[in-house]
């Protein structure tokens, strides 16, 4: 594999997907609309539970303000998890067009890794930035708060980049599995759903039952959103950033290796349907 060539290919792939992302203004606007709306519903719900419920104190060290910040960042980071395999790559597999990609002078894994992560970034960055912007501008009760500390913010940024790689690696693993399954996207769908739930975007992991907390910390999907966001809101100290990011790194490696093995092992036995 030629690194220089791969780098150049990634650059142009990123450029083209950025162009696509900008082209479809309406998509970005309506996307932000959805994220903000969803965020507001979540904020309302958490406010109700924190304020009026019988055990409002039982929040496991995550105050209402922190939870609301969590919601907004969660909306922004959730876009990393959106998979492109249900679009283009899935079509390719279904139509047997995967052959076209096999003809490109790039290693298939690298090619798709770069392509899907570029597509992810290119089409979602506007939406993420705008959602965070709106979150900052909302009236006090529902607004995204400032980071806990400058150090925490720095750790947050590092952890976010790691989360992006982790999400891409996971997406590739799911794609590789999808490649081996000629009958429907059931298994991959379940995988995506489970990862989404365990990432904390639906409900901050801290608010899950206490007895699950150790498991929730160690499982890979917390690295998608929960670890970076907790670093931001301060429910994880900057001191625990290193193990957190280390955990993300470890799971990324595992996903990449597993994805590569599965993809390469089965590549020559793909049953290309139709075509």
């Amino acid at each position, binding site marked *: 594999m030629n690194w220089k060539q791969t780098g150049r290919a990634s650059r142009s792939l990123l450029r083209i997907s950025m162009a696509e992302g900008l082209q*479809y*203004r*309406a*998509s970005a*606007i*309506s*996307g932000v*609309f*959805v994220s903000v*709306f*969803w965020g507001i*519903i979540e904020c*309302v*719900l958490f406010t*109700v*539970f*924190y304020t*009026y*419920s*019988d*055990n*409002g104190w*039982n*929040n*496991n060290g995550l105050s209402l303000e922190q939870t609301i910040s969590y919601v907004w960042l969660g909306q922004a980071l959730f876009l990393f998890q959106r998979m492109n395999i249900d679009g283009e790559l899935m079509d390719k597999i279904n139509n047997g067009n995967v052959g076209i990609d096999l003809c490109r002078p790039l290693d298939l894994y690298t090619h798709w890794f770069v392509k899907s992560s570029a597509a992810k970034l290119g089409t979602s960055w506007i939406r993420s930035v705008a959602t965070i912007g709106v979150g900052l501008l909302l009236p006090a009760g529902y607004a995204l708060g400032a980071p806990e500390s400058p150090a925490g913010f720095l750790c947050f940024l590092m952890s976010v980049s790691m989360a992006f790689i982790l999400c891409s690696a996971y997406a590739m693993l799911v794609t590789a599995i999808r490649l081996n*399954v*000629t*009958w*429907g996207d*059931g*298994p991959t*769908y*379940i995988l995506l*759903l*489970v990862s989404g*739930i365990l990432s904390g975007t*639906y*409900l901050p992991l801290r*608010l*899950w*039952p206490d007895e699950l907390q150790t498991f929730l910390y160690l499982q890979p999907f917390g690295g998608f959103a929960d670890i970076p966001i907790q670093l931001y809101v301060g429910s994880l100290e900057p001191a625990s950033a290193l193990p957190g990011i280390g955990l993300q790194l470890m799971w990324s490696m595992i996903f990449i290796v597993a994805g590569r093995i599965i993809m390469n092992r089965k590549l020559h036995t793909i049953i290309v349907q139709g075509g």
Partner: protein
Amino acid sequence: MISEVKIYGKYLRMHLLSGMEYKGWWLMLIQVFVVVVTDPISTVLLFSRFGNIGEWTVAHIILVYALAVASFGLAESLCRGFDYFPWQLLRTGEFDRLLLRPRSLFVQVAASRFHLHRLVRPATGICAVVWALSELEVPLSPRNIAILVMALAGGCIMYCGVFVLTSGVAFFTVKGLDWIYLFTNASYQVTRCPEPYLPQALKSMFSFLLPMLFISFYPAATVCGWDYPAWPGYLALPAGAAFLGCALLVWRIGVRHYKSTGS
């Protein structure tokens, strides 16, 4: 009309036949089951951590929520094709083919996809409604059953309207269609919040823009005898029909605007 129903049945048979040609269709059942089970998980977990909100227990919320989800699931099963329309039929030009057939477009699009496993969602939704009612010790009297059936039918019609609206708008923009998510999967999330605590703006939006509360909360309140006027509980059908009517209008304008792709 009768022949359209027959065509719909024929299409469904076709989909079932081609579905069986592939292995692993039963995996789809598991898939939807996972979706259905995980859907309310965050609500249940929130209740288990924070306890009840005044009078509102998890059963109250599940009742309202399950009504909404079940009608969504019904619409999704019957009008699955509309759900796929913008991304598959329209983009690939498959819609051309439907226009070339001497049958109602509505039936053809609705039946252009069918997935048996989608029925898992309404089925579990209805089970959840029954569970919640027994938990709240509300009897299943004929009157209550009638109200619930009307709520489900109205909700199904309303969500069909949502799908038709999506497809109608898709004629103008496919990429800018994400907002429709507010009307589909996001819309029933709003029922997770106890109605008395819902901000007024959201209440109005989900009564008048999308008559969500009329197909979930008000019927539930009437059935359980909560402290609300009873009459809104009977309005599910007209509310759903009104929404579908507006959606069909958009659909019609859209068809006239159709630009076929490819050569």
